[in-house]
């Protein structure tokens, strides 16, 4: 399991946004998804998120837990309810809708 935690506000024990990205090895789709996700989070969820990356090739057991079929899959663990976004997250607008995140510009 590769955990990439990027807490920008260390005083907050648990980030408001708990995101988990399931990938399968270092496939182009997986890498693209991770890159897209990081960029999006930095832009719109700065300081409020935590990203966990799970490589199913290394830990296939975990696929069943979050009902993963498609790869890559982004799972919003928190805030509830759980949401899933499948694909390489290339369409930022759709990812934001899927995560139910208000774009920064709109704030």
């Amino acid at each position, binding site marked *: 399991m590769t955990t990439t935690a990027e807490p920008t506000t260390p005083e907050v024990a648990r980030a408001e946004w708990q995101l988990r990205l*399931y990938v*399968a090895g270092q*496939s182009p*789709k997986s890498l*693209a*998804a991770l890159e897209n996700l990081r960029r999006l989070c930095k832009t719109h969820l700065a300081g409020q998120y935590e990203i966990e990356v799970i490589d*199913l*090739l290394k830990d*296939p*057991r975990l*696929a*069943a837990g979050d*009902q*993963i*079929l*498609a*790869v*890559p*899959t982004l799972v919003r663990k928190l805030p509830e*309810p*759980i*949401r*899933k*976004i*499948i*694909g*390489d*997250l*290339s*369409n930022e607008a*759709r*990812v934001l*809708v*899927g995560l139910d995140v208000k774009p920064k510009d709109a704030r």
Partner: protein
Amino acid sequence: MHSPVTTSLPKSPTGITGLDEITGGGLPTGRPTLVCGTAGAGKTMLASEFLVRGATQFGEPGVFMMFEENAAELTANVRSLGFDLDQLAEQKKVVLDYVYIERSEIEETGEYDLEGLFIRLGYAIDSIGAKRVVLDTLEALFAGLPNHAILRAELRRLFRWLKDRGMTAVITAERAGETLTRHGLEEYVADCVIVLDHRVTEQISTRRLRVVKYRGSAHGTNEYPFLIGERGLSVLPITSLRLDHRASTEQMSTGIPQLDEMFAGGGVYRGSSVLVSGAAGTGKTSIGAKFIDAACRRGERALLFAYEESADQILRNMRSIGIDLGPWREKGLLEIHASRPALNGLEQHLVTMHDAVAKFAPALVVVDPVSNLIDDPSSQNLNHTLIRLIDFLKQAQITGVFNSLTHGSTATEAGMSSLMDTWLLLRNLEFNGERNRTLYVLKSRGMAHSNQVREFVLGGDGISLAEVYVGGDRVFTGTARVAQEARDRAAVEERQAAHERRMRQFAAKRKALEAQIAALQAESEADFAELNFAAAQNEAGAVIEARDAEIMARLRDGIAPKEEISNDEKALALSASQHKETA
């Protein structure tokens, strides 16, 4: 299993009764098989049994990946077939993986593949060394994933992948309209396709199975009825049944001594099938009950399938003719399964019978009546079901008694006849203002049997057979028989009396003759005495005469016979001569 073709293509037995017979050994090993059918056709059940039997009977662990119901639901569902998935999962023989997709929870952005599914499946397979895989129902993915282009490509890859891993897989799919599957899965699975069907005819549902395609193998192409029973599926491949059961030479009593006598004295053969046919109220059930009673008396188990009366009603009714089946039931020697024929389809009845017979292991099975199982007597179904049942019973050396209600004609029985070894025909004989029951043995294979019509008498003390009276061209039964018997008895008595009277007459006549003879004899004796007397007199007369003559001569010669002839002699001679004159 038997065809030479099958040797070239390895097959994995499903363990499902009948299916392996149709497919000649099972599903193609290491390849996917598509099982499609409408909702409720039994796809999941077939898939489950394939997996469970593989794990328990053939040492092939399996992965059940389900998309529609969760593991708990599936476990509960297949428990009704007697499969304990939880236990098998604990023993690492089976992995249950529930794949849940909720369309509303999923957002799609950009490129993806189903590697997650592959990884999950691969992990499950590796964790127990699975050889079998069930995907039930893959088509749920079409609802869950919007991008069908990706999905189709991934499914194609999945089937390839399953083949590469050497998995014997069953993939279920929903049938829709004219096509085999709603989303055209048959495109991808080309090796073996099985179609399940659930049809309702005359309010009675029947499940059917057909092997549409089996690449590289011969297979039965018919539609076969199949059933989901307490012990799983059973397909009824009528045409592939073999006639290779053993034939017992042991005879078993029918419980009616006079009837046994009609069968070379010992009853019917063990393991044979007996048809008892007759119109309403001819006593079929009673004969069946007698069979049961006799079997239980011997300490054997008997199983009764009743389709007309409840168990209690049968017990009561049989008690009225002196057959008490209650104790046998309490002792566990008798089991009664009573249900209305319309409760289930014919096949379902058959499977119920199968299950009951397999569980109870009886020596005798009575079906009362088998004709009630169908409304339409011309139907082929009954025959097929019967063939299946009879063969099953014969394989197990169980004697079967099948009652059949006739509706005037014997057409139904004619169809059944070839299946039956012994056929008892019961008839109502209406004559002289009353109805009487007669019985005769129409056929009994492999044994001498009586050709006589007997009267079948049901009384408070049981069943008995009476010789019927055949006079002229008429058979006498009931009171006519009794009257005839009385007449005959009277005739016998009369003949006896006449005989005695004649004997007496003879005796009297003889006595009279004897008396006559005695009288005659006495008379004859008297005559004889007279005769003797006369003869003696005559002789004496002759002597005297001779002497007289001499004396006379002497006297004439002057020779005085002084001392020789006394006066007495003179007197005597005188009287003799006088006597001679009178005589």
